[in-house]
């Protein structure tokens, strides 16, 4: 048994016959009942209007954060848009670290991608303009479509509730 194993190891990789193995692939759990919901706490956590409402309020008390035609009946491309959205949110959260007052709103009009962001006032304007141009150029080159970033600064995050 050990001799056979040693003999197998001596052989070059291409000649080794694959032995029967089983693998288990697990992805992170999708906690559907806890998604996008802020749990009630002691009462000191400030929460914006967007965060305070659960996903079943979308269309009734909330609007959509990402507007595209991928999820309409008879239209394609939903998965591609979802991946792009995820990347865009992470990229912009990293480009403006700690400055985003609320979630990004992504709008797609034809080829154009409009990203609307609410920022705090921690950085001086010339730095914000630089980051704006940087983000637009990089995203435009990456996605091969015109990207427009519309920024607005607010003095502070507006709390809707304290949970």
């Amino acid at each position: 048994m050990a001799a056979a194993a040693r003999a197998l190891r001596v052989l070059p990789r291409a000649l080794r016959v694959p032995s029967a193995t089983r693998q288990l692939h697990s992805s992170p759990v999708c906690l559907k009942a806890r998604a996008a919901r802020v749990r009630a706490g002691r009462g000191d956590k400030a929460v914006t209007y967007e965060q305070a409402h659960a996903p079943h309020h979308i269309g009734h008390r909330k609007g959509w954060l990402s507007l595209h035609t991928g999820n309409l009946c008879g239209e394609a491309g939903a998965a591609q848009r979802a991946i792009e959205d995820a990347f865009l949110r992470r990229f912009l959260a990293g480009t403006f670290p700690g400055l985003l007052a609320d979630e990004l709103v992504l709008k797609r009009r034809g080829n154009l991608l409009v990203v609307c962001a609410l920022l705090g006032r921690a950085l001086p304007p010339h730095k914000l303009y630089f980051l704006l141009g940087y983000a637009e150029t990089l995203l435009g080159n990456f996605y091969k479509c015109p990207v427009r970033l519309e920024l607005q600064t607010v003095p502070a995050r507006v709390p809707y509730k304290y949970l």
Partner: protein
Amino acid sequence: MAAGWLWRRLCQGSAFPVSYASRIMQKQYFLPSSNLMGARLAGSHGDTQESKTNPLVSLSDEPETLYKRLSILVKGHDKAVLDSYEYFAVLAAKELGISVEKVDKPPKTIERFTLLKSVHIYKKHRVQYEMRTHYMCLELKYLTSSTAAVYLEYVQRNLPEGVAMEVKKTKIEKIPEHIQKPVWDTLPQVEETEVKS
């Protein structure tokens, strides 16, 4: 007031600068406009009926294709957005002089799927997701191809995000030469012969 604000907001929402691509226009005969607003146009102008040579517009001699019906189906997730877009499209059609046959609102379609709430067991506890698609169908009648092209370009440049459009055109064509007259008129006269058994 609300309409004016809505119109301006929709116009500002357009993604493209308002520079026009060159369009091939069919030859149009300009009728004298009888409802000229404002006395400043009367008399002080040159010839208002003479077609101004616009370098972006080229004329061609081909006959225009005529459309009996132009059916625009607009789909979206948000009913309020579709309602405001309907107001905008109907207003644009009226301004261009296009007759609106009807504005139909087909019922919404809901695509639902039910998943297990938990990762491992608990079959009795599930979670449901749904996607709603609202529709609005605008039907315009009796258009020429250049009018249709202009209207569609304007209305599509101002399409809101998250809204999809499908356009169906019904053409009017002349009846082909070979079926204009009934067949039994063109056949040669066959003499009736008595069949003797």
